[in-house]
């Protein structure tokens, strides 16, 4: 079955939890015991409606304060698609959580309250979707019931977003506008009878019809080696297999490859998956590769096709989203994890802080604080083998780890 990961974004009170609850409810994904628990708790709190956020706010502190603190993952499926929804908090540490939730998402839903239209938060949500190059973005114009299902109101919001999109650097995005009411169920799973002027799909139909092939855009094949498999048993005495996941493009037996960083050439001899051999490994598959020649390969090395070399450098420029309470400062040192390759990194320059409302940059800042996004230059202890984030998401991103606390402090997108 097809698995589709979706990130959600919305300001406080845009009705994000209600929308997710509506999706679960109308697809019959809430089992009786869970529904019963929500009914009881809603009643106990004196609500005369079902508070679906109780289904997703998993921590005591979240339920006490009525807010979402941390990303939650929600699962439901229809006949042909398994959905994983990353429910990200609306306010606290917003950027950090949304970037995390959206990093593995194939599509994103941005909620807009029909009464308020496009607000400052909407800019931010839209900005992060652009930064992460999320191919499919749904603008869900919610609470249409509270504006009398007005087509004029919907079109006004559409125009504003389209203007915003025209200012974005990323022009290949598919933006879909859907007018809906999560509370009443209009256009979420069931088509609305209240908006005959809307001819498009319901939210669920649209999400089901997304083409995954479009989403994971094909590029050059990258095979970062996670670990070397050497069984040393009687049957497999000389076996030397390189275990990893295929990114970007496919890998085939007979492909001429280059081992990085040594630049040794060889040929793919066999592709193993468990106890079977295959001719082709599609991108996204976790396999074990045997090479024709006895070459030196270890964790962190990368196999690429001979005519598809990535960039190799000890200095990189990247857009960094900062996620730690301790700010990023110039000349500080971090561990940098690029895929499965670990190096040390020193920040040589913070060139700018990018404003997430499309209003430009602040040049030469002294630091990058929690939830800020900025352009940074780094010097590395060893070269990494990378593509730009635009060309290959997996091979164009890295994380920075604080060497004292071991916390994941930031994420970088190589420009």
């Amino acid at each position, binding site marked *: 079955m097809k698995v589709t990961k979706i990130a959600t974004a919305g300001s406080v009170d845009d009705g994000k939890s209600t929308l997710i609850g509506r999706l679960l409810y109308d697809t019959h994904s809430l089992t009786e015991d869970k529904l019963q628990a929500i009914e009881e708790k809603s009643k106990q709190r004196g609500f005369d409606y079902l508070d679906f956020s109780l289904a997703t*706010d998993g921590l005591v*502190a979240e339920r006490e304060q009525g807010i979402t603190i941390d*990303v939650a993952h929600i699962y439901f499926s229809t006949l042909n698609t398994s959905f994983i929804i990353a429910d990200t908090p609306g306010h606290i540490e917003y950027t950090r959580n949304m970037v995390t939730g959206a990093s593995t998402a194939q599509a994103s839903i941005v909620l807009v309250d029909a009464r308020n239209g496009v607000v400052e938060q909407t800019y931010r949500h839209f900005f992060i979707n652009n930064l992460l190059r999320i191919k499919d973005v749904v603008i869900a114009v919610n609470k249409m019931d509270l504006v009398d299902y007005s087509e004029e109101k919907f079109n006004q919001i559409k125009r504003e977003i389209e203007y915003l999109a025209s200012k974005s650097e990323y022009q290949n995005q598919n933006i879909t506008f859907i007018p809906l009411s999560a509370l009443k169920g209009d256009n979420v799973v069931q088509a609305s009878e209240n908006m005959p002027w809307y001819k498009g799909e319901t939210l669920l139909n649209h999400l089901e019809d997304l083409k995954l092939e479009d989403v994971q855009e094909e590029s050059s094949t990258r095979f970062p080696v996670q670990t070397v498999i050497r069984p040393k048993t009687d049957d497999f005495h000389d076996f030397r297999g390189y275990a990893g996941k295929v990114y970007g493009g496919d890998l085939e037996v007979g492909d001429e490859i280059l081992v990085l960083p040594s630049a040794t050439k060889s040929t793919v001899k066999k592709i193993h998956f468990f106890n079977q051999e295959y001719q*082709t490994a*599609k991108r996204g598959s976790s396999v074990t590769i045997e090479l024709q020649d006895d070459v030196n390969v270890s964790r962190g090395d990368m196999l690429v096709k001979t005519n598809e070399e990535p960039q190799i450098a000890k200095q990189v420029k990247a857009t960094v989203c900062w996620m730690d309470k301790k700010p990023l400062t110039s000349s500080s040192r971090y561990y940098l994890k690029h895929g499965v390759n670990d190096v040390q990194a020193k920040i040589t320059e913070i060139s700018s802080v990018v404003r997430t409302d499309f209003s430009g940059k602040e040049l030469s800042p002294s630091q990058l604080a929690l939830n800020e996004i900025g352009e940074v230059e780094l010097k590395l202890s060893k070269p990494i083998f990378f593509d730009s984030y635009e060309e290959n998401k997996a091979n164009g991103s890295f994380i920075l780890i604080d060497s004292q606390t071991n916390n994941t402090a930031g994420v970088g997108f190589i420009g």
Partner: protein
Amino acid sequence: MSAKILKVGALESEAIYIFREVVAQFEKPVLLFSGGKDSITLVRLAQKAFYPAKIPFPLLHIDTGHNFEETIEFRDRLVKELGVELIVRNVQDNIDKGRVREETGKYASRNMLQTETLLDAIEEFGFDACIGGARRDEEKARAKERIFSVRDDFGQWDERNQRPELFDMLNGRIDLGQNVRVFPISNWTELDVWSYIEQERIEIPSIYFAHKRPTFIRDGLIWSAADDIVYREEDEQVEERMVRFRTVGDMSCTAAVLSTATDLETIVSEIRESSISERGARIDDKRSEAAMEKRKQQGYF
């Protein structure tokens, strides 16, 4: 050789990738094995991740002493077939030593007591990564869990200060004394696990299939009366019913469901149609809305 193209199973690929990261990033990993379907699925995924080499870490079973007999027989057979090391640590030992106190009465369970034995085992062997079969769809506190979840010396989960996980990158850096709980099938649902077991024809203990069993009813749930592990009051009448189990935790907190499913195909279609969640038959979660979060803070899986 014909042009065989490997089909991508996104969830399977992700799990295999995670297993390989564990072995590459940690010195002493261990797989927590309960004999249940989730840990059996983990074992198959580990086999796939490292084939043709053997699974490069031992299995650890925290034995509550309240197991279904079939599960233990199954466990021993599987370990023999795989040729991996099995470590068993018993909750009973800690009860005998007086380190933990056994609950008594109607809802008595040893489920909570597992935590102490697990933490002891982690310390005894110096495990730095414990791989488990927990899934985010099981319970809403688990939905907040990371794939690499850092625990301190006391096994505590600091749920409000978790490391963000971006793309495929897993940060396994820890200080001495800390350990990481790893959940390779975080993103699987109960239905995904059953569909995978069906697709791979993975052998599972017989109690997962419908069978006749002496049972009694309490709080609308069906309990096993096959032996005296589950506390039963005299007026709770025993009757033979056709049942199967959806989870195989501690017998004293695991209820059965009525079923006629004697093969995997029927189980998968029953799960698809089911209107009760998997943990709806687990009394340990019904203690309070925050039961799971509290247990996790104390070092539970």
